[in-house]
């Protein structure tokens, strides 16, 4: 009995953490989102998403985060495969180098991209020194996608690598013995077996990309309004927390819906965050 109680006591801090920083804020958001400034019940804050400005921003956010997620997956999968084939030991340096930039603050790294991409920035300086034409993607959606891919790529690589490393060499050898070539092994063995990692990677990239407002602000020159920016404006500039919370709830529904969709593919339920 007392042993059991001791175990339960260990869960205390987590319980406190979740209640204080997840459950209570969620309830507060729900209350704000479903009331007007006088505190009366209303659905207007949720309906605000239907306003053309907000729905446009949501659609653009969905587009850009989808593109970023696909790009991350395409870039990360080969890397995760390479890491897996290198076996443990020699790959640790590469993983280390890959994670190293994450030691630096996210905001600073994004500002660094601004400096790199600017008209008079580092990249254009190098290009013009080589006599090449400059690139001009700063303050465009392309720069935002670049920022998203750069910032969220490690979140795709790590779960993919974990999932691939778990696949036993014997399985791959068996596939080869049974006459599968490399491509067939990839499509019919490796990808299905690493599906939980793929699903988890997609969620880890798609969700922060969908909700970001910092990347679009810094690399988009505030000329491109994503749904995250709309919500941020409601909270900071307009000081309308009710509408801000209402829009956040709708956005959260979109996030949950996309995760539910992914869950259909991940039958084992190993990889998902929820």
């Amino acid at each position, binding site marked *: 009995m007392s042993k059991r109680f001791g175990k339960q006591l260990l869960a205390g801090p987590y319980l406190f953490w979740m209640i204080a920083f997840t459950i209570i804020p969620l309830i507060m958001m729900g209350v704000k989102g479903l009331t007007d400034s006088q505190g009366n019940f209303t659905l207007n804050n949720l309906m605000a998403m239907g306003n053309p*400005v907000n729905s446009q921003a949501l659609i653009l956010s969905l587009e850009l985060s989808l593109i970023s997620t696909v790009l991350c997956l395409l870039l990360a999968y080969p890397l995760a495969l390479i890491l897996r084939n290198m076996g443990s030991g020699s790959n640790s340096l590469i993983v280390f180098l890959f994670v190293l930039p994450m030691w630096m603050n996210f905001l600073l790294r994004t500002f660094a991209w601004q400096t790199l991409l*600017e*008209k*008079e920035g580092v990249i254009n300086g190098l290009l013009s020194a080589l006599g090449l034409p400059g690139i001009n993607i700063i303050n465009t959606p392309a720069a935002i996608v670049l920022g998203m891919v750069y910032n969220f790529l490690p979140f795709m690589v790590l779960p993919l690598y974990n999932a691939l490393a778990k696949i036993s060499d014997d399985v791959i050898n068996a596939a080869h013995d049974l006459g599968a070539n490399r491509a067939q092994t990839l499509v019919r063995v490796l990808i299905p077996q690493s599906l939980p990692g793929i699903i988890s990677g997609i969620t880890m990239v798609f969700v922060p990309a969908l909700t970001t407002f910092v990347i679009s602000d810094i690399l988009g*020159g*505030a*000329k491109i309004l994503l749904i995250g920016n709309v919500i941020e*404006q409601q909270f900071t500039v307009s000081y309308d927390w009710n509408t801000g919370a209402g829009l956040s709830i709708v956005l959260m529904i979109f996030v949950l819906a996309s995760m539910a969709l992914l869950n259909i593919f991940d039958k084992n339920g190993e990889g998902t965050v929820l």
Partner: protein
Amino acid sequence: MKRRMTALLLAALMVLALAGCGGGNSGSEEVVYVYNWGEYIDESVIPQFEEETGIKVVYDTFETNEAMYPIIEQGQAVYDVVCPSDYMIQKMIANDLLAEINFDNIPNLQYIGQAYMDASQGFDPENKYSVPYTWGTVGILYNTTMVDEPITSWSVLWDEKYSGEILMQKSVRDAFAVALAYQGHSINSTNQDEILAARDLLIEQKPLVQAYVIDQVRDKMIGNEAAIGVIYSGEYLYCKEENPDLAYVVPEEGSCLWFDSWVIPKNAENKENAEKFIDFLCRPDIALKNFEYITYATANTGAMEQIDEETLNDVGIFADQETMDRCEVFTWLGEETEAFYNECWTQVLAE
């Protein structure tokens, strides 16, 4: 109206720190809680004040008026002395958040120029709640090597010639002030047709705009990233020192005249210490120190006597009477009009 990036980073930390130490006025030690813009005071002034008065200063910073307001309104942290801008002071007075200052405790008020006290009456009608700290105009900073003609009008911000070379303020009131002034309307317009027309002008301008930024106008202009930027006059002196090609003008159509002034919130726990702090800042030698550090024009005539002629006569830094007459001080427009402005601004950004 100082808005610098470091402040944003610091603010996050400060708020956290405050949660721990705010409110608690431990023991008998005299203390004053100060809430100011980032990089808006000479750092050596604080220890000097502590040494001379024995009052400990707890100093925090904010980045925008809008970020400061809810903290004071909801009493998330209790401050004794705060430095908001004109229209925000008016809003705080309207919502009964400010205490009347006891000017008997601020003898150095004599050094604050009467002209600035008079102009402050636009937002503090009886000069009861605020003491001017810095002031200036909003205007156009431009690079003389990239712009051929001398700029005199806001119209240059709609000139196709400068497509991609224009930086606008990412702040609803400032952006609309530009469009409203350009059309010859008051920057405090509450007329919906005028505001909608201004919105359409800003949408029309958007393809020409390189970026909507706040603090970065300064750095981008210094780095030759853009030819023209809308900026606060307070940044001009610093910009000119870093890049001599930059010039500043307040367009002929008029513009915004702004003030950042010290106020005492109603819930302040150390009101007398706050008054001592304000009095200290009004001392000419301290005001001069602060001017030299932050480069925003001071309202302190005692300090102005010690500033060199060239700086004092630069209408970009210290606007002359003629410029001030062309300009208007922002006033608070009430919740409804404010919401309408915000809605129009979101439409501009979303376009």
